[in-house]
């Protein structure tokens, strides 16, 4: 009974120890950066979300724990602190790592299809639709004189039948 009590007292301590130990890993990606003004901080956060880590290819540099992402965050911080604009920092990174580093790709001959593709698709679909619609009334009037007469007769007949 006494032993059990001891365990009960130790348990919270043990839990606390675990929390401190394991929280370390989840904090690794959060570095502390200090800024002179809110605008710089905003620019920095926008940039780290926009810049893609070349090593861990499907993460931005804000999310990634990779050593390289850390370097890029530090470099971004340094450049932002020097007063460089968002575009200047992006240009700096693109000059070194290529357009791959941007999550917001520029319009180039290789990427133009990303913008034009859906547009062309919609236009193509509309054209097909318009053609189909134009075809339909032509089909309905395809009856020759004899058939037309027969149709009128049938309609009259039908009208009589429903009256009686």
């Amino acid at each position: 009974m006494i032993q059990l009590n001891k365990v009960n007292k130790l348990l919270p301590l043990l839990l606390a120890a675990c929390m401190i130990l394991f929280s370390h890993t989840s904090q690794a990606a959060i570095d502390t950066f200090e800024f002179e003004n809110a605008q710089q901080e905003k620019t920095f956060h926008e940039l780290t979300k926009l810049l893609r880590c070349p090593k861990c290819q499907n993460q931005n540099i804000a999310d990634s724990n990779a050593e390289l992402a850390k370097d890029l965050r530090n470099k971004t911080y340094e450049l932002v602190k020097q007063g460089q604009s968002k575009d200047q920092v992006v240009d700096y990174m693109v000059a070194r790592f290529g357009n791959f580093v941007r999550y917001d790709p520029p319009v180039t001959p290789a990427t133009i299809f990303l913008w034009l593709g859906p547009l062309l698709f919609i236009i193509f679909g509309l054209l097909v639709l318009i053609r189909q619609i134009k075809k339909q009334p032509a089909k309905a009037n395809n009856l020759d004189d004899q058939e037309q007469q027969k149709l009128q007769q049938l309609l009259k007949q039908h009208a009589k039948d429903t009256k009686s």
Partner: protein
Amino acid sequence: MLNKRRVLTLLVPFIIFIIGAIFLATPLLKGSDPSKLDSALIGQAVPEFTLQDIYDADKQYDASIFKGQKMLLNVWATWCPTCYAEHTYLNKLAKQGLYIVGMNYKDDRKKAIRWLKDLNDPYKISLFDKSGMLGMDLGVYGAPETFFIDSNGIIQYRHVGDLNDKVWNDKLLAIYEDMQ
């Protein structure tokens, strides 16, 4: 006639599908690895830098060492297992007379010197880039990487990953020989 046109119209989605399939399958069949990026510095000179010699902290180099002859710039580190695998091949290339400059990237000087003593040193010049400064300017995103630099100091190609017999003979040798 009308029937023929109908068949052709119905074939359109199929043709689009085939074009899409070819578009997606070519890189797969060619075995191109999406994690290997083309360098953004191809056609440009090696960026300016000042770095210490790995053996001698008093000795400094700058970008002028990349002029005068074609050469390879190999980026390596002792924390990089693939670099270890690659090292034997670098020794082989150096023995064949290739001019190779080494850049030790974000590493420990003592460990690096021990590595070069134990495994032989294939480098004509060994740069020590502790902070990764030149690595950043070169767009290095992992080690090993090897830059092919012509005699005017212009980067012509970058290989990501290790150098070995297969990749050298299949691809890189031709690139090296095409350089002036």
